[in-house]
């Protein structure tokens, strides 16, 4: 055959006459995306993704089937070709009915792959489960204990009966591994010679330090407190998160190569400028450690504390004096931690003052329930109007009685005072757990309107070159630990790219999502959630031991097996989603009807999810041309066309040699081998 030469994207490429543009491009290291082409079968031309521009040709050419000619000048990424490709992908995705990732994984602010680690627990493989969770979360045991688990709220099993106990499974597998001799250990990349200082040893700082160390950077984690752990150690009571679990996980992070220094406070022990000068990059993860004041008269008296200040004093084994009668103000998890700690410290009457009702409380339902069991008295629809004291010490709190008015911006009904209606509660101390603030003193960084460190949402950069900031100290302020961890792991990637000379901002990848209702899952067998029994309230309220023992191995496995496995098994390999992200598509502009999603046909060992089928015909052609069977065909016409066993002839279906070549050829997750 004759040699030909053509120019592709400015590069001179040689090939043989009779070869297609795609073949020559690939042989010369130029990737042209395609969804329906495979070298093992004849070209087909259905997807229209492989189109390229050729100089002198008004039409776009399908590179999979157009024979190259000598002297052709091809542009694979020209504006017209890219636009055509993009719209083809948008059209395909507008008709795609599948979940790239399960709703649990999407709901996790750190994007942990819940479905995958739950699956490993179901298979009894906790080591692999921990490896998977640690791709995004280096503190899985601690988080397993404390996380308010937004994943479970979205768990689709909740549409059948109850969501999977994802957090409890995570706690089980991580604790199991903490004590394992054969536990998974991460590999560290070769040293880069770059240094990073991370300020703040809480969840965000630990996370950023861990991932940056694994990327080969020389990381120093600096913290003002005597020990690492931040709020995990100083803000969360022992009965909720045993300190030995925190210690063990911090030790693993140190083992991964993070140098740690404690009792170093920026602005006091070293100026921020001096600290900055020591490192190539700095990550600020100082958290939000100041309690929001109540802003009511009498607040300055002795016996009025901030919630986190109170909790920290307990963690430091030097509890603030609270007396016999304690009022905790607030409805969040910190309020719950404070009231239950007060109970454990021996207070006789512990009140929670909350201006709305129980259903508006942001605290986890189980926290409220357990606090109630432990004797905490809730004063709903009340708000401190004045702290009354004698000789500068609290004796009572005057409460304004409230009622619920119109819903506010968050959708919760706002409390409004009932004019002239007050009650007085005799108390020895008042703990304000209504919020936390950042204390940015000593950091010469730009702040937002609310006095919080301003960091770019995609790069996490502050106004200073090479200074990144994450977690509670930034932007929206205090949130849950897993959110801070999520930011920190993303920031680690960005900082790594910055250190390597070319910053790659974080970009939320496009994923396909299904809309599923309870009716869609009506055929699923009901299987109750595996329950964990708490120690009796009368017993546990007197100590700081964990409220329960968590799952046994058998319970964890049983619970993990309830998972519906919503996320696509092929997400990592799927060409459709790969191209969709490469071309930044917006299929929502073509949103419309989707083909029937409930048509799943089992052909021997292959299950077809029609919602994910893109009709590329590769399975049909592979079955015919490669496997020599010809069992599949396109059925119907137009938009409703589907691929099915041809002629629905059961005798022919039996011929299926279970070669599985069709599933291997499928560019998406439409075909799944089930046998």
């Amino acid at each position, binding site marked *: 055959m004759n040699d030909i030469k053509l120019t592709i994207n400015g590069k001179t490429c040689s090939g043989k006459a009779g070869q297609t543009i795609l073949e020559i491009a690939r042989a010369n290291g130029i990737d042209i995306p395609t969804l329906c082409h495979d070298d093992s079968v004849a*070209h*087909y*031309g*259905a*997807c*229209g993704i492989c*189109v390229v521009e050729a100089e002198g040709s008004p*039409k*776009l050419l*399908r590179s999979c*089937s157009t*024979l190259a000619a000598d002297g052709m000048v091809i542009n694979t990424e020209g504006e*017209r070709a890219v*636009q*055509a490709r993009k*719209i*083809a992908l948008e*059209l*395909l995705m*507008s*008709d795609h009915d599948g979940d790239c990732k399960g709703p649990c994984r999407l709901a996790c602010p750190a994007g942990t792959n819940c479905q995958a680690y739950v699956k490993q627990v179901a298979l009894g493989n906790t080591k692999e489960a921990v490896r998977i969770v640690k791709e995004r979360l280096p503190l899985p045991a601690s988080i397993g204990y404390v996380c308010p688990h937004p994943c479970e709220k979205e768990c689709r099993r909740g549409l059948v009966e109850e969501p999977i106990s994802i957090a409890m499974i995570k706690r089980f597998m991580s604790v199991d591994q903490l004590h394992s001799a054969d536990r998974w250990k991460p590999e560290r990349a070769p040293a880069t010679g770059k240094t990073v200082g991370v300020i703040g040893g809480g969840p965000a700082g630990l996370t950023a330090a861990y991932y940056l160390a694994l990327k080969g950077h020389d990381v120093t984690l600096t913290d003002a407190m005597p020990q690492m752990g931040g709020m995990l150690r100083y803000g969360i009571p022992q009965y909720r998160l045993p300190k030995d679990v925190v210690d063990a996980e911090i030790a693993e992070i140190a083992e991964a190569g993070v140098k740690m220094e404690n009792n170093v406070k920026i602005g006091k022990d070293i100026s921020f400028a001096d600290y900055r000068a020591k490192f190539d990059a700095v990550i600020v993860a100082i958290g939000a450690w100041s309690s929001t004041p109540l802003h009511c008269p009498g607040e300055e008296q002795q016996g009025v504390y901030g919630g986190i200040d109170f909790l920290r004093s307990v963690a430091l084994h030097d509890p603030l004096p609270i007396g016999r009668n304690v009022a905790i103000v607030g409805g969040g998890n910190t309020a719950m931690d404070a009231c239950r700690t007060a109970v454990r410290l021996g207070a006789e009457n512990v009140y929670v003052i909350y201006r709305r009702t129980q259903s508006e409380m942001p605290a986890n339902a189980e926290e409220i329930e357990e606090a109630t069991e432990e004797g905490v008295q809730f004063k709903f629809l009340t708000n401190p109007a004045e702290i009354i004291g004698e000789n500068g010490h609290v004796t009572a709190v005057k409460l304004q009685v409230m009622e619920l008015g119109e819903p506010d911006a968050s959708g919760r009904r706002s409390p409004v005072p009932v004019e002239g209606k007050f009650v007085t509660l005799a108390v020895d101390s008042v703990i304000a757990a209504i919020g936390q603030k950042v204390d940015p003193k000593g950091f010469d960084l730009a702040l937002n309107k609310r006095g919080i460190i301003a960091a770019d949402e995609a790069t996490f950069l502050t106004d200073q070159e090479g200074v990144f900031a994450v977690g509670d100290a930034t932007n929206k302020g205090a949130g849950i630990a897993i959110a801070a961890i999520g930011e920190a792991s993303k920031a680690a990637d960005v900082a790594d790219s910055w250190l390597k000379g070319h910053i790659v901002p974080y970009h939320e990848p496009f994923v396909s999502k299904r809309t599923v209702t309870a009716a869609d899952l009506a055929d699923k067998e009901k299987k109750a959630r595996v329950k964990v029994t708490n120690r009796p309230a009368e017993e546990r309220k007197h100590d700081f031991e964990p409220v329960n023992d968590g799952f046994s191995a058998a319970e964890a496995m049983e619970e993990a097996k309830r998972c519906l496995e919503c996320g696509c098994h092929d997400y990592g390999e799927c060409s459709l989603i790969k191209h969709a992200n490469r071309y930044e598509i917006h299929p929502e*502009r*073509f949103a*419309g*009807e989707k083909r029937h999603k409930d048509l799943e046909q089992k052909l021997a060992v292959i299950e077809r999810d029609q919602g994910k089928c*893109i*009709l590329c*015909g590769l399975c049909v052609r592979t079955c015919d041309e490669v496997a020599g069977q010809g069992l599949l*065909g*396109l059925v*119907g*016409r*137009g*938009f*409703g*066309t589907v691929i099915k066993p041809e002629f629905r002839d059961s005798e022919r279906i039996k011929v299926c040699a279970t070669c599985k070549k069709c599933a291997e050829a499928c560019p998406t997750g439409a075909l799944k081998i089930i046998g």
Partner: protein
Amino acid sequence: MTARIVVGEGSCGLAAGAAAVYDALKEKLAGVDAKLGITGCVGACYLEPIVDVYDGAGALHRCVRVKPEDAGTIAGAVKSGDYASLADIAIQPEDEGFLSKQTRIALRHCGVIDPESIDEYLADDGYQALEKVLKTMTPEQVIEEIKISGLAGRGGAGFPTWFKWNAARQSKGEEKYLICNADEGDPGAFMDRAVIESDPHNLIEGMMIGAYAIGCSEAVVYVRAEYPLAIVRLTEAIKQARERGYLGKNILGTDFSCDIRIKAGAGAFVCGEETALIESLEGNRGMPRLKPPFPAEAGYWHKPSNINNVETWANVSWIINHGGAAFAAMGTENSKGTKVFAVTGKVKRGGLVEIPMGMTLRDVIFGIAGGIRDGRKFKAVQLGGPSGGCIPESLLDTVIDYKSLQATGAIMGSGGMVVMDDSTCMVGIAKFFLDFTTKESCGKCVHCRIGTKRLGEILNRIVSGEGKEGDVELLEELCNTVKAGALCGLGQSAPNPVLTTIRYFRDEYDAHIRDKKCPAKACPALLTYAIDKDKCKGCSACAKKCPVGAISGEVKKPYSIDPAKCIRCGACHNTCRFGAVTVE
């Protein structure tokens, strides 16, 4: 000479009741010295059933819209020789113009000869062209003659016929196939059916000339199964041609052998696309193949194949008989000969019209078809079926040739000409044609399968009053992408009705989207029905007709419509005898 009475029995005639007319005539003519026969479709479909009465002198007295009870009148006229007695059913001068203004080549025997009789075909110079070709011309000379004629494919694309024949002839290989595309799928096009039903031997003769020129020994007619009469008549014609030696081995005693068989298609529009047709012929699902290779290189069974449609073949014998130059003398610079149009819709006279290229759209729609009926106004003409476009009044003087029509955004296509008046919503029409192509998409390529679906959904929301700013631009973007990205002609041309209606009737789209109004008052979701209190007599007829009880009032006082209950069916409007129901 004996009188001859000929009943038009094409599908259109039969649908209008020609069979009953024939039976009645047979009864009334018993014992009368007259010969009763049939013919195909003369093209004046709106006049069917048509009965042609040839008197003893051979003069034609054409009777139209004949009912069985008119049989006695006809028999009486034949018996008495008083043909003036046919005045009541005789064709009117303006209707004669419908036929006399045409130039008939492809349709020259249609409605004239008996399609079931090879002798009638032979009597009108039938098979002379084939004999001339086989006995006096080389294949190259035949192709040259076709080249001189300028004949181009009449199925839609307008590709030069000689070029395809020559490419197939030049292709290497002993086995070559000839295919006739009779899968006429455009809604509103029926010229191919008329040719097969009315003049099947002309098709056979044309195909045999092509087969000789290309070197094929096997030919197939792929005809849609919805044309049962065409299949019957073609089957009979093939049998007769074989018996007389015009088909089969050693045709007319020469070395040339070729036979024809019929393949009935299962009714998929896309099988009119040549490569999808080939797939279907091979027993596969009708889905287009990538081109190249073109059928001339690798077609049926991957052998060199030539495909032309019925109307193209129907011109071939005439060209051989009269010479390519005579054909080329008609038409324009780039489009030669005649073209058959199926004129339908809101015209006074609808049917098949064969005219030389170069006439204007106005000549056809107003000059031949008589303009718009019921006193309404012309609004647009849809050319080329679902693949074509809508042309507005301002372009009615466009000359009919391939290039000029394409410049308007429409196409010649197979010759469907759907005429619309001012009661037609142009957004609705775009949606109508798009619905058709969406349903007929084979599902293979993404642009056509999903793109047309999404176009339809956007149009649907526009006619439902849910259109958004930016929808027209989104339509245009998607249309252009589908045109560029679809695999075959079906998808590539499917956006044409949308693009042309946007181009010429943008104000109607804007009215739907911005004002939530349908200017043609055709989109039910955008109409408001109300009762004019001054005109309403309080007769209660509308309230009784209303299927949802939306109209209430007291007898003899003005009624009113509850817009919340009204489903905009229009029953009240159609019922009111006082014109009191208004539609806005």
